[in-house]
C-alpha cells in the first residue's frame, strides 16, 4: 500500500476537508493506485540533478515601492459572504 486510510484522514485534516467513511475508503483506494503509479519516478537516479521549479529561468522580480491605487474596499467586500464596517467577518476563532 502506498497510502493507508489513516494517512488519508491525516491529509484531509491538513487540507481542511471532511470525508464520509465510504468516501475515505474510495479515496484511499484511488490515491493508492495513483501514488503507486507516481513511484515510477524512483527508477531514475537524480542525485546530481538540480530541481526545476519553473520553466523559464527567473531571478527575483522587483519593482519600485510606489503607492498605487487599490481596488475600492466596497467593491472587494461585495463578494464576501459576510462583511461589515470595511472588514471581512468570520465566526469566532476561540
Amino acid at each position: 500500500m502506498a497510502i493507508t486510510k489513516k494517512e488519508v484522514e491525516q491529509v484531509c485534516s491538513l487540507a481542511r476537508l471532511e470525508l464520509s467513511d465510504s468516501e475515505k475508503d474510495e479515496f484511499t483506494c484511488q490515491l493508492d493506485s495513483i501514488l503507486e503509479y507516481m513511484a515510477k519516478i524512483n527508477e531514475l537516479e537524480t542525485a546530481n540533478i538540480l530541481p526545476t521549479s519553473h520553466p523559464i529561468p527567473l531571478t527575483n522580480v522587483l519593482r519600485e515601492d510606489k503607492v498605487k491605487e487599490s481596488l475600492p474596499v466596497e467593491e472587494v467586500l461585495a463578494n464576501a459572504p459576510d462583511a461589515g464596517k470595511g472588514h471581512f467577518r468570520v465566526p469566532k476563532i476561540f
Partner: protein
Amino acid sequence: MELAKLTCHEIHNLLKSKEITSLEVTSAVISRIEAVEPDVHAYITTTFEQALEQAKLVDKEILQGKELSPLAGIPIAIKDNMCTKGIRTTCGSKILHNFIPPYDAFVIQRLKEAGAIIIGKTNMDEFAMGSSTENSYFGPTRNPWNLDTVPGGSSGGSAAAVAADEAILALGSDTGGSIRQPAALCGVVGFKPTYGRVSRFGLIAFASSLDQIGPITKDVTDCALLSNVICGYDPQDSTSVNLPVPDFTKSLVNDISGFRIGVPKEYFIEGIHPEVKQGVEKAIGILEDLGAVRVEVSLPHTEYCVAVYYLIAPAEASSNLARYDGVQYGLRIPEEGLIDMYCHTRTQGFGNEVKRRIMIGTYALSAGYYDAYYLKAQKVRTLIKQDFEEAFKRCDVLITPTSPTPAFKIGSKTNDPLQMYLSDILTISGNLAGIPGVSIQSGWTQDGLPIGLQILAPLFGEERLLQVAYTVEQNTAEHLKYLPGTSHYTSQQL
C-alpha cells in the same frame, strides 16, 4: 451567408467593406447559441445584452471611419477561469458559483482595447482539473461532432463553442494540455504559447508554474490574430516575460522547405489509436513532399511525464486552492466555529476530482514525503526539459499526435482517475518544459471524429510553430471540411 460560420479574418474584411455589421454578426452568433446550447452546453454564462451594446458601439466607430483592429466587433468566448469585471466567473466550481470579479484579467483588458465582443463564459472542468469537461459543477459539455462523446478538457466549453459556431474565437487555458487536447477532440486550432508569453494576471490559478492562456480558433490565421492581441509583457504577473512580441501574422507563410521535422518515437507507441497515428503520419508525409526533412528523435524521459505532472500540478494546486475558505468570496457554509466553517465550506464547495488533487498535493508536500515526491518530481522535470533541449538541436519543430485517442464516450473514464490522467500523456511534457505547442486538425476517424496533430517548438519559437501549422493547414484537404461554406456538421447533426 451564415455569419456564425465565418472566421475572424473573413468577418473583419466584411466589416471593413461595410458589407455586414458587428450587430449582425453578434446577433447571428447569439441565434446559433440559442439553437444548439441545449445539446452542446458550451457556456456557463452568456452576456448577450452587453455584447449587443458593444457591437453597436463598434458599428458606430466603423461609420465614423475609425481604423478597425482585426478583432474589433468579433464575438469571443472566454473560459470561465479568467476574471471579467462585473461578469460572474465560476471556474466551473460550486465554491465560486456566485463570484463577480471587481477587475478584468490582463487578457480581457487587451481584448476590450481591441474591440472584441465578449459573448459569454465557457464551461470547464472544475478549476481546470480534468480532460473531459465532465468535472464541471454546471454539468458536462458535449462534443458537437458526436453528442455522446466528450469535447476534451479542461477548456472543453471553449473548444466546443468554436467547433459548433457558437463563437468566432475563444480563449482557453492550458496547464497539461487543456487547450490542445480539447482542440484536437473538437477539430479546431488550439495554441499554448511559451510560458510567460501571456500574462496570468486575473487567470484563476491552478498550477502556477504550468498555467498558460491561449487561443482556440477555427483556423491558424485567426490563431495568429488573437495571439497578437493577448501576448505581451505585464508587470502585474511576475512570471510574464519582457521580450518583444513578433507580429504572428508574418508567420502565415505556406512554405516549409528545409524545415527539420522531429518525430519522437516515444509519442508513437502502443496505446496510440491506429487512426490517430495514421492521420499524423499522413500529415508528416505531406510536409516531406513539400520539402521538409524528417528527423527521428528521442525524448527518453517521456514515460515519466504523467507521474511528474500529477505530483507537481496537484502540489501547486493544493497551495493555490487554500484561499477558498469561505472568508473573502464565494461559498460559505455558516458554522459556529472558524475551523468548522472552513472544513464544511471546502467539503461542500469542491467536487471530487478537486478534492483528490488537493489531497495528492497536500500529501506530496507534507513532512516526510516532500523529498521523495515533490523534490524528486522537480528533478525529473529537469531531465524532461533537457530531453527537449537535446531534441531541438537536431530539429526545428516536433510533430506528434495531440491526444492518444479521438473523443471518448461521456462517462467512460469518470470512475478511473488514473485512466483519465493518461489522456494528457502527449501534451503535459510541453507544460513541464514551458515550450509552445499547437494542435491542428489532421484528419478524421471512420466514425467522423476529428484527429489532432500537435506541433511543439523550442521556448519562444512560436513563429516557426505557426508557420508549420499554417503550411499543414493549407496543404491538407481535411481542414476544408470544417472551414466555412463546406460540409460542416451544423446543418445535419444539430
